[in-house]
């Protein structure tokens, strides 16, 4: 354990502050990225700075949770749950893209309805497959952790 000048209450308080700070940073970056893309019509090259922080942060959070066997805090690990979550991703991506096109018709992003349908279907399919793969990994990791703990 790292040497610290704080006692356990101060450490847990600091963890709560850091946790809220991390959540604020993640949601804040997501809002900034979506706002710039949808409202201001920025393309992704202009969002490189935000994405350079947001993507590694997301990967870190996802991989750390997976390695610790954490996955289903709020969302149930069922096929229906995954279908709903993938649909939510698809609708969000399609809807936001359609809105961006409607707000910035001069940008060559295609027409709103076909792009909405394309993104809805492709993001839904990709997200569902990704969630299936992640759950398989999560189950394997959880089993390994359980067996590890039983041996102790």
């Amino acid at each position, binding site marked *: 354990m790292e040497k610290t000048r704080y*006692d*356990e*209450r*101060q450490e847990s308080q600091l963890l709560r502050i850091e946790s809220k700070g991390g959540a604020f940073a993640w949601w804040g970056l997501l809002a900034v990225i979506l706002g710039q893309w949808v409202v201001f019509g920025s393309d992704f090259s202009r969002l490189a700075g935000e994405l350079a922080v947001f993507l590694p942060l997301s990967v870190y959070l996802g991989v750390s949770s997976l390695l610790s066997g954490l996955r289903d805090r709020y969302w149930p690990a069922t096929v229906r749950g995954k279908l709903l979550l993938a649909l939510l991703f698809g609708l969000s991506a399609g809807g936001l893209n359609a809105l961006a096109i409607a707000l910035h018709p001069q940008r060559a992003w295609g027409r709103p309805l076909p792009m909405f349908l394309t993104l809805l279907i492709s993001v839904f399919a990709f997200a569902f497959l990704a969630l299936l793969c992640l759950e398989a990994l999560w189950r394997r990791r959880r089993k390994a952790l359980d067996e590890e703990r039983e041996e102790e």
Partner: protein
Amino acid sequence: MKNLRMKMARMQLGMSQTELAQAVGVTRQTIGLIESGEFNPSIRLCVAICRALHTTLNDLFWEEEHGKDTL
């Protein structure tokens, strides 16, 4: 829930919160929050507090459930 038993044990020994905090290696505020029931200490800290107050975990931290057998 306030931990009055801990407060009583400390006062019986004539210790202040600051002295108990120094004995177990935490801040005075932490002792205050444990006594007022606003912070749940780890079992390690509970044991350290019991040792400093010459008492046991049962005496300070065990709570009987009314109308139910415990354990």
